[in-house]
């Protein structure tokens, strides 16, 4: 939420007011979401429909985790499902081969994914933009092959789990992971740490020249993304009772979670969550109405998202709010009382730098 609740004098555009009001009450909204979510199972949600809501939580965590790296820090990972797979395999192996109890096995999934993230990050975080994306895609594909060939991961047939807790336990585990991550993201994006991530996204060179050791911050964001992706992967592995290279490193989900973050609004906290809930429901509706065609629908949604809504719903709203605000205040630049005597007009704005909407006086 970039709406800074600054002690702004003078009126603010209506949309900007709404947004900053929402962002002030973000904590309240999050609490509401968790409360309603916690209530659903007692209100009779079960069976197939419970799996639908669980799927929404899973994708929300995946999209939000991707956003920490892709949206906030400007490093668009194309291989986040690798951490999901590491988490799923960790829990499956701990449960099945080492006889570890359910909760410790799931809890271990996150840290294991973080260790992998650290090792991988040291290499791939040196690349940027499209090449970082390709490298992470390569990492994901290598992970698929390694899991298929190693004995301890059960090779191509994967791992089967039998004695696992009832579905309600899983429901609360997934809700908890989402709630914790949303809270962490909400808090971090308002601290210096969050600001520095955005600085790295906008101009890493400038951040370095301001004394920021960008490697630490990038790696931290990458590991945080891996932590939650690993956790949700671990919980999913047990919930699905079956972990094999194809599903644990699901190439389709890998793209779907990015689309959800983009549709919602990369670089915000609410965006990825709303995008995940919306798209998961849409896919289920398409699947029940014309089974078999949901994948074509997904492909079309991905294309439409990139072409029409690159900033996503929340992103576009914020953009609009900022633009409206400029009109109201930008017109008489620095209308504020402290304006210096000089007939202050914006400098001769260079055409290609200034945004066309900027009123050129």
């Amino acid at each position, binding site marked *: 939420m970039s709406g800074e609740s600054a002690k702004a004098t003078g009126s603010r555009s209506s949309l900007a007011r709404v947004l900053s009001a929402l962002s002030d009450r973000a904590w309240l909204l999050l609490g509401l979401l968790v409360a309603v979510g916690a209530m659903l199972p007692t209100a009779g949600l079960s069976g197939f429909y419970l799996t639908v809501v669980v799927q929404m939580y899973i994708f929300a965590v995946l999209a939000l985790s991707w956003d920490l790296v892709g949206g906030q820090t400007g490093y668009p990972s194309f291989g986040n499902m690798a951490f999901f797979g590491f988490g799923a395999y960790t829990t499956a192996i701990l449960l099945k081969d080492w006889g570890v109890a359910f909760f410790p096995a799931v809890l271990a999934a996150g840290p294991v994914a973080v260790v992998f993230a650290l090792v991988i990050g040291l*290499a791939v975080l*040196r690349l940027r*933009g499209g*090449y970082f994306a390709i490298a992470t895609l*390569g990492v994901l594909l290598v992970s698929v092959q390694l899991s298929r060939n190693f004995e301890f991961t059960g090779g191509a047939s994967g791992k089967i789990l039998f004695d696992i807790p009832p579905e309600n336990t899983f429901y609360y585990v997934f809700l908890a992971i989402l709630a914790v991550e949303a809270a962490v993201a909400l808090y971090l994006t308002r601290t210096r740490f969050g600001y520095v991530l955005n600085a790295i996204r906008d101009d890493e060179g400038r951040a370095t020249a301001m004394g920021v050791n960008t490697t630490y911050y990038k790696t931290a964001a990458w590991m945080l993304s891996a932590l939650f992706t690993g956790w949700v992967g671990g919980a999913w592995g047990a919930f699905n009772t079956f972990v094999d290279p194809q599903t644990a490193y699901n190439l389709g989900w890998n*793209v779907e979670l990015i689309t959800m973050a983009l549709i919602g609004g990369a670089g915000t906290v609410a965006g990825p969550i709303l995008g995940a809930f919306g798209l998961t429901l849409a896919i289920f509706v398409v699947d029940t109405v014309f089974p078999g065609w949901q994948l074509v629908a*997904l492909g079309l949604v991905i294309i439409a998202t*990139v072409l029409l809504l690159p900033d996503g719903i929340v992103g576009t709203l914020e953009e609009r709010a900022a633009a409206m605000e400029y009109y109201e205040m930008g017109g008489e630049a620095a209308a504020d009382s402290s304006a210096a005597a000089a007939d202050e007009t914006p400098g001769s704005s260079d055409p290609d730098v200034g945004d066309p909407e900027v009123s050129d006086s």
Partner: protein
Amino acid sequence: MALTQFVVNGLLVGALFAAVAVGFALIWGVVGIINLAHGELLMLGGYVTYWLVAFSGGSGGGSIWVALATVPVALAALYAVGYLLQRLLVTHVADADLFLTLLVTFGVSIVLQQLAIQAWSATPRSVGAGFADPSIVIAGVFIPKIKLIAFFGAIALTLLLWGYLRTTRRGRAIRAVAQNPEAARLVGIDVAHTRAVTFGLSAAIAGGTGSFVAMILSVQPQMGLAYTLKSFVIVVFGGLGSIPGALVGGLLLGSVEELTAGFVGSQWTLAVSFSLLVVLLLVKPSGLFGRSVEEGEG
């Protein structure tokens, strides 16, 4: 002895990888997008051949010449598909951030694959073209004739494209747009049309290669991803925009994969080629021959 056999197997298939990679490199270099749907274009080419052979009296038409006759048809069909894809869709993304082009083309690949599944089911099919005695033997090395034809076919397609780019006016226009779209526009080149032609050519060579793949192996809707990813490795290895680089890269990748299959175990071939992709990006982003693949970061 076994070594030469594996290397020969590798080269025979490697030529196909090279032809696909050349199309992939062309799009990356000229239009500036990474086309994750490139493998699907190959798949469509394969189905063109499969259906033409099936409909041309599948029972009688077992001969190789009928199959070869379908290659030009596949080229033309995929050229049209490529041209349309560029005009309708890719133009909006051409100068967007590289990452967004990855996403859009992935969406396209999902749609193409799913439509293929809905239309022809996901069952693998092979064109039964074959020879009476399928292999010729040179110094103890077995070379299936059908694969030899596919090898020369792929090399021919690659050289044709290279010649086209080198000699014809349109070819020069394409290379001009590759180096500097603005300058090209200044000297009167219709950049949008040129990019569409480039996409058409890239799709055509992928489709033609697909025909050969249908002849020597099999074709099914899900086959595309493997060829796209091999193209990645080859282009990153051979360097962007360099057709000789892609050719050498393709032959090398084919050999590396077959040698791995021969000496280590074929379940490791994919692990090797994908690790190659990551390592190459980190170590030598500019590849062996071509222009640096690395983004010109200020």
